[in-house]
């Protein structure tokens, strides 16, 4: 293995402890490495430094040198080099480490400065925490416990500003709560490349707003809500729905494209309330598209399948499984897998196809990528199908071969895992001509035509892994249980395998992984539980020659471009 080149390190002293950090690190990040919290509002690790909230002030000093000789000045009392402390506090976000720099993060001067800022931030803040959505995850609340006065000296009238401005279709702004940190302005300009936000008026009357004739309506607008340190920018969808401290957080992966944005599902008592991004510096930094966040609505959609049906009437799962097995044993089979299924499901489906002696096909979903966090491949896990060997070539959008085979009478039974065959190009006549076994979550033309319908789980209801465009395997966990009548895809597939006479196989993710790592070369030596939350890069060389559709995006360069 080639060792990574050592970054240029700079040694600084923070609260008496020496630490070496990469050159260019700022004081907030350096202190973080020592578990020292430097409170801040405007600073965001993925945005440019604005330095305007003044909360992150620290005391800073540099080793003293004689101006003439440049020789270190030694303090007689300690025998060490004297430190020239700057008499006024410096901002941690805008201060880059320098060799020998000394920092105090909690001296009386620092505390005094932060308490002053904290009081100032609150004088014109409405303090409407009891009705504010940010309560519980509000930086003002957090820092007020550490630096707040506990009572107000402000007896004047507070500023009045607009309370519910619709900045766009998904974001509502309460200007009175805004502390003018400009994170949202910088995000729109620097990351979303949609410079629509700005301040009007001046001084404490400064007001965040959209530029005239513009709206905050890009597909990344909800990130401004995430990074808003206070309750000024709120999600119109989530607003007034639920207190955040009641919500359970479950790690998941965005299912809208092969980028594999890391996300968190916020749920309570089996109901999902929102999705937010989860930081992964190798994949999505701290961002996520709005479109991916709203996909949780699929979970409780009206056309959700929740009853096992056999020839259109309700059935028990086991009866339906044996009927499906009968159909499959009768020959002339086609298996359609999905790029939306997990690696584990694809692995079992491959076993099933192998048991039946057929090769599975997949349905491609492609559209224009947005060069940021939605790629051209709108399936989250096509690479998983390659890794597990479910497919060996990239899929097409239309199942033309299958259509021809049906027309020719070569195929009489189709098992499809979550794919709507009508959407993949099969006509109603073709659907009517074959026996369809449908494992899926939502009602569609295929489920309507299917002989056997086996309702399964949405991604947010089950655990598994996806392999993203970088060949990074990332895991997701079950946030909520599926509706009554649904079964885990793995259970259904394992039962089908058993009914077809195959060797018994585990039907849970952890159990399955021992087989998976033993039989899939790319996953050898790995276990589900050992995959870090930020994922693991797989060796992609076996598939290097494939014409993947993805273009460049935030953290991904297509192979050909990477060489250039």
């Amino acid at each position, binding site marked *: 293995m080639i060792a990574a080149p050592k970054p240029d390190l700079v040694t600084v002293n923070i609260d008496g402890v020496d630490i070496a950090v990469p050159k260019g690190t700022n004081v907030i990040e350096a202190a973080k490495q020592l578990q020292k919290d430097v409170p801040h509002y405007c600073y965001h690790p993925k945005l440019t430094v604005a330095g305007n909230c003044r909360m992150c002030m620290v005391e800073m000093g540099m080793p003293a040198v004689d101006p003439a000789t440049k020789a270190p000045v030694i303090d007689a009392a300690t025998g060490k080099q004297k430190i020239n402390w700057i008499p006024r506090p410096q901002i941690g976000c805008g201060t880059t480490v320098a060799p020998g720099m000394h920092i105090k993060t909690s001296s009386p001067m620092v505390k005094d400065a932060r308490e002053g800022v904290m009081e100032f931030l609150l004088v*014109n803040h409405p303090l409407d925490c009891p009705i504010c959505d940010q309560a519980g995850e509000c930086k003002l609340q957090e820092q007020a416990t550490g630096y707040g006065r506990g009572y107000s000296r402000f007896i004047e009238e507070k500023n009045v500003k607009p309370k519910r401005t619709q900045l766009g279709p998904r974001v509502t702004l309460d200007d009175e709560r805004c502390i003018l940190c400009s994170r949202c302005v910088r995000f729109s300009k620097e990351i979303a490349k949609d410079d629509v936000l700005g301040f009007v008026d001046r001084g404490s009357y400064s007001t965040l707003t959209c530029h005239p004739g513009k709206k905050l309506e890009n597909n990344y607008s909800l990130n401004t809500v995430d990074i808003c340190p206070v309750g000024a920018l709120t999600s119109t969808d989530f607003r007034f729905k639920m207190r955040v401290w009641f919500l359970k957080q479950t790690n998941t992966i965005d299912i809208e494209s092969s980028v594999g944005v890391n996300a968190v599902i916020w749920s309570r008592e089996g109901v999902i309330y929102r999705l937010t991004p989860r930081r992964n510096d190798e994949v999505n930094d701290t961002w996520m598209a709005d479109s991916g966040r709203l996909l949780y609505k699929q979970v409780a959609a009206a056309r959700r399948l929740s009853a096992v049906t056999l020839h259109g009437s309700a059935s028990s799962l086991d009866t339906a499984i044996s009927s499906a097995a009968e159909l499959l044993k009768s020959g002339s089979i086609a298996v359609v897998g999905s790029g939306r299924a997990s690696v584990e499901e694809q692995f079992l489906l491959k076993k099933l196809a192998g048991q039946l002696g057929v090769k599975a096909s997949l349905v491609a979903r492609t559209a224009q990528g947005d060069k940021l966090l939605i790629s051209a491949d709108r399936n989250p896990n096509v690479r998983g199908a390659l890794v597990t060997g479910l497919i060996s070539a990239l899929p097409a959008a239309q199942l033309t071969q299958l259509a021809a085979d049906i027309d020719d009478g070569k195929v009489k039974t189709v098992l499809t895992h979550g794919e709507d065959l009508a959407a993949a190009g099969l006509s109603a006549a073709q659907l009517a001509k074959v026996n369809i076994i449908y494992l899926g979550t939502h009602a569609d033309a295929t489920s309507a035509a299917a002989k056997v319908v086996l309702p399964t789980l949405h991604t947010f209801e089950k655990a598994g892994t996806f392999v993203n465009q970088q060949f990074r395997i990332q895991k997701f966990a079950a946030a909520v249980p599926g509706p009554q009548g649904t079964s885990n895809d793995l259970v259904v597939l394992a039962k089908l395998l058993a009914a077809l006479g195959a060797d018994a196989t585990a039907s849970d993710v952890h159990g399955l992984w021992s087989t998976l790592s033993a039989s899939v070369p790319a996953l050898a030596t790995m276990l589900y539980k050992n995959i870090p939350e930020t994922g693991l890069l797989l060796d992609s060389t076996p598939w290097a020659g494939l014409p993947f559709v993805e273009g460049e995006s935030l953290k991904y360069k297509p192979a050909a471009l990477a060489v250039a």
Partner: protein
Amino acid sequence: MPAPAQTRVIFKHIDEAGYTNDLGCYLRHGGYETLKKSVARPPADLIEEVKKSGLRGRGGAGFPCGVKWSLVDRKSGKPIYLIVNADESEPGTFKDRYIMHQDPHQLIEGTIISCFANNVKQAYIYIRGEMPEGARILEKAIAEARAANFVGPNILGTGYSCEIYVHRGAGAYICGEETGLIESLEGKRANPRIKPPYFPAVLGLYQCPTIVNNVETLCQVKHIADIGGEAYGKTGTPGNTGTRIFCVSGHVQRPGYYEFPAGTITMGQLLNEVCGGPLPGRTFKAVIPGGSSAKVLRFGERYKGKRKVGAEMVDYDWGVEDVPMDFDSLAMIGSMGGSGGVIVMDDSVNMVEALANINAFYQHESCGQCTPCREGSLWMKKISSRMVHGDARKEDAALLKSVADQIPGRTICAFGEACSWPTQSFLIKFKDEFEGYAEAKKSLPADRLALV
């Protein structure tokens, strides 16, 4: 000791009968001769002359001009810009306006000499939005100078080219802060930049090295180029060379602008002799020596300490009248020379009301970018306005002081100091008046209670 005579160098022709602001008049008075001499010299020589002169910036901070020029990044390969800071907005200051209105070519000559010295190909005069007349005069003067080949391509046949553009601000005090000015010139909101990393000398206008100099400073450069740095340094006192213009306003018999060798005149001489003393029947109460953001001085207080005279440390014991009007002496007694705007208040002034006016100004001019200044300036304004218009409480004095103390040294730019120093100093020096204001107000006539 009688006051020294005025030495008018920069203001030589201001208010002179028959002197007009056109090129012909300027040339008749020896105009652009210094430019002709200067472009024949190596630019480095001119920088050296400015360093030797000890010239300190006349915009307010008094930063040595030669040092400022030497900090400019000349190795980056990027163009160097020069910006003339003509955003004269500090209340009590009105010197640059007269230069631009009555002697614009002096500024243009000084600007081109400074540009030549620093290899600047493009200069901007950023003039305050409230001075449309000044902008028109400058535009005309630049056109005349261009026609006469003092500005523009191939100046005086030397092969050196330099353009000057006039840019009008949109009416904000903060545009006088050099990085706020640069933002504004770039077409953005004038939010001052954080330093580090955005020092104008390295990352200024369009992220290029930039020199920002005050109008008067550049006029001084013209005289340095004319007579040489050493000769220039002989005017004034060591560390405070050249002449200083004082803009005296308020309760004196003869307010106006006066130019003296720096450091040679005391506050008492300036107010009593030059300006004719207080109005009949009144006595001086307080004076702000360097624009409204400078800390106020109270007549009757004494300043004691040691100061350096030559190589020796000597004791001083001054009243307000004894303080020499130079950067260092005023800094020593806890105020500043600033922009030279001397605001005089006599015993008819109520200090609470005076501060309420000052606070209203600074609150209105805070850009709102960083927290302490944004919230602090408005809070102070709300308190002092309430004291004047509504209910004053005894504890407001301590509260005002405490709010002001939370601002300076914690902001992006010097506006934090500018908005808090008046309150801090008023509250230290006139604490009794603030604490007793609730009582004092009862005897005031109703028309005294409206802020201007």
